């Protein structure tokens, strides 16, 4: 694959063959060497073949081999002439991250980490073989969740108005059509509202061990030594089934629209087509389920803190900093070749990162830029960033979403063979509670790239700025 270095941390894949635009990759020279060994750069080129794509097929520094789209890919298509691709959103529709702050200092929690980890593990179901946090939801109730998102949580006592203000899209994506979700998808989601899931999903209790910008940190209510909670989860079986349903529908409809793409997983139809509109309605509904899911888990986490530490809500001061989604397609206005255009931005493993002053940001956060939450691995650290103006010019207001895997799950399991990872992590100061030993092995710290390198690339490219680093000390895995 030909790669041209445009400047430090930015590379171009020239337009060849069926590509409609060039590819652009944000990465260090070291990262590029690793990417060349993985099919992910070919996937960036494949995405560049989507009808209606504008600007560039973009790759963030945490890019890795996905299915169809690379994980860490961003593609904006013209809202009128472009296509929508369920693979460009992914199976876990609105997989995302939320960060809650507390009034607690690490010194207060340190002697009670085990009790806290036990309480969180007991309160937050993984979602397999047991009911979720809210048992017995009927299909009608699930449709309400899919229509209202985090607002449903507010109506049912699991959220505050402030929580919704600090959630991307207010926790409810416009255009949701719950009737476009299949019965099977509702059945798969029925027991899973308020559940974490397995794989790379987690709840992480951390302390802030580094502040990079004290002004921004102050404005976000973050300070050194403070205890925070990071939750990574998505739309669970409801979203997975929805993606599957529409991949099939759209895969079968493509030929009618004369669309031919290099990978079946890239299946796409015109946004304006009946199939495209149906998917967008279903995707928004699944995204809403995900926001409600993370909101309910945050509520459960607050309960666990209060019980385990025997403190009052005011002492705890549990408050949402922000909630971001990193698997989604959204209609946004961006400048393309000097002209503002309405585009549909597919972010597959990439986070929206709007710069300061963007009208989509809540008033309290608007002067700062959008908080971008980037989880690392459970042994090292995660980051809080904010979006910068350059992101609006270069990346359709997008940044990275995580560390990116270095090892396959299989290799990680091999490396973990015979080791007591839970004890190793304990020695590093991280208490882990997990439903599956294999899950810990697959998610071991060295299976991931160092997320610090990822966020440094984004900062050097002036896409996002670091605000604070979070050091995990208690991790709940599904």
């Amino acid at each position: 694959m030909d790669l041209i270095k445009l400047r430090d941390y930015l590379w171009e894949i020239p337009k060849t063959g069926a590509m409609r635009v060039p590819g652009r990759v944000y990465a260090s020279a070291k990262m590029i060497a690793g990417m060349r060994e993985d099919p992910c750069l070919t996937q960036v080129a494949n995405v560049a073949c989507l009808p209606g794509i504008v600007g560039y097929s973009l790759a963030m520094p945490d890019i890795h081999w996905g299915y169809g789209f690379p994980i860490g890919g961003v593609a904006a298509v013209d809202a009128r002439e472009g296509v929508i691709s369920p693979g460009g959103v992914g199976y876990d529709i609105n997989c995302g991250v939320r960060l809650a702050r507390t009034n607690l200092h690490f010194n207060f929690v340190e002697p009670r980490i085990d009790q806290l980890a036990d309480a969180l593990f007991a309160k937050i179901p993984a979602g397999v073989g047991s009911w979720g946090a809210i048992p017995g939801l009927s299909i009608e109730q699930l449709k309400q969740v899919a229509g209202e998102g985090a607002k449903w949580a507010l109506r049912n006592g699991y959220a505050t108005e402030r929580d919704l203000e600090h959630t991307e899209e207010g926790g409810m994506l416009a255009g949701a059509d719950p009737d476009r979700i299949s019965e099977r998808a509702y059945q798969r989601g029925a027991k899973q509202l308020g559940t974490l899931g397995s794989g790379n999903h987690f709840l992480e209790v951390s302390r802030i061990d580094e502040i990079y910008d004290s002004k921004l940190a102050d404005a976000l209510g973050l300070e050194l030594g403070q205890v925070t909670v990071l939750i990574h989860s998505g739309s669970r079986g409801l979203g997975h089934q929805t993606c599957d349903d529409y991949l099939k529908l759209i895969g079968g409809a493509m030929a009618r629209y004369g669309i031919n793409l290099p990978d079946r997983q890239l299946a796409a139809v015109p946004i304006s087509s009946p199939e495209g509109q149906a998917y967008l309605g279903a995707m928004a509904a699944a995204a809403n389920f995900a926001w409600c899911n993370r909101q309910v888990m945050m509520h459960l986490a607050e309960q666990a803190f209060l019980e385990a530490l025997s403190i009052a809500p005011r002492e705890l001061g549990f408050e949402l900093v922000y909630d971001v989604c990193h698997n989604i397609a959204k209609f946004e206005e961006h400048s393309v070749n000097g002209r503002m255009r309405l585009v549909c931005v597919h972010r597959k493993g990439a986070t929206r990162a709007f710069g300061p002053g963007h009208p989509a940001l809540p008033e309290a956060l608007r002067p700062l830029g959008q908080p971008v939450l980037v989880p690392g691995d459970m042994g090292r650290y995660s980051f809080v960033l904010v979006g910068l103006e350059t992101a609006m010019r270069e990346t359709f207001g997008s940044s990275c979403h995580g560390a990116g895997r270095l090892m396959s799950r299989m290799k990680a399991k091999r490396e973990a063979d015979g080791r007591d990872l839970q004890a190793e992590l304990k020695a590093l100061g991280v208490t882990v509670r997990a439903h599956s030993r294999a899950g810990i092995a697959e998610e071991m710290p060295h299976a991931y790239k160092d997320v610090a390198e990822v966020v440094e690339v984004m900062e050097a490219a002036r896409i996002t700025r670091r605000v604070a680093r979070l050091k995990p000390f208690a991790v709940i895995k599904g």
Partner: protein
Amino acid sequence: MPTKPTAPQTEDAALFREFEHTGDLGIELDAPTRGELFRRAAIAIASLLVEMAGVAEIEQREIVVEAEADLDLMHDLLTELLALFTVEGFIWRDASVKEAGRSLRVTLRGEPFDPARHTFRGEIKAVTYHQLMVENSPGGWRSRVIFDV
């Protein structure tokens, strides 16, 4: 891509091999016949979800899938089985397959999943179409499937 046989968890030795995929989980299957290929796929997905050692063959479930192409049949069968586990909470240890034209009638033998007795291995979100392959070669039937996990 390096592959290794997965430790046999049923009476059949090495029913499938896992292969390296950075983010997800890929398997390769070989079988002497088409029906056996689908049977092995059905057992493979069960053993990726739950440790087979603790699963007893007490009850039966039957599913029918139909599709024009074998590729879609493989995808749809595994997706139906994923739903059988996640929606109905049924886990199986063995399967038998009856082929009839473009449809498959699959009988699963197992029991209701019980988190107290069974060891859950990890969630599978979906059966992807990415590099999905089913082919009949002179050496027998082969398939490759990547799961989103």
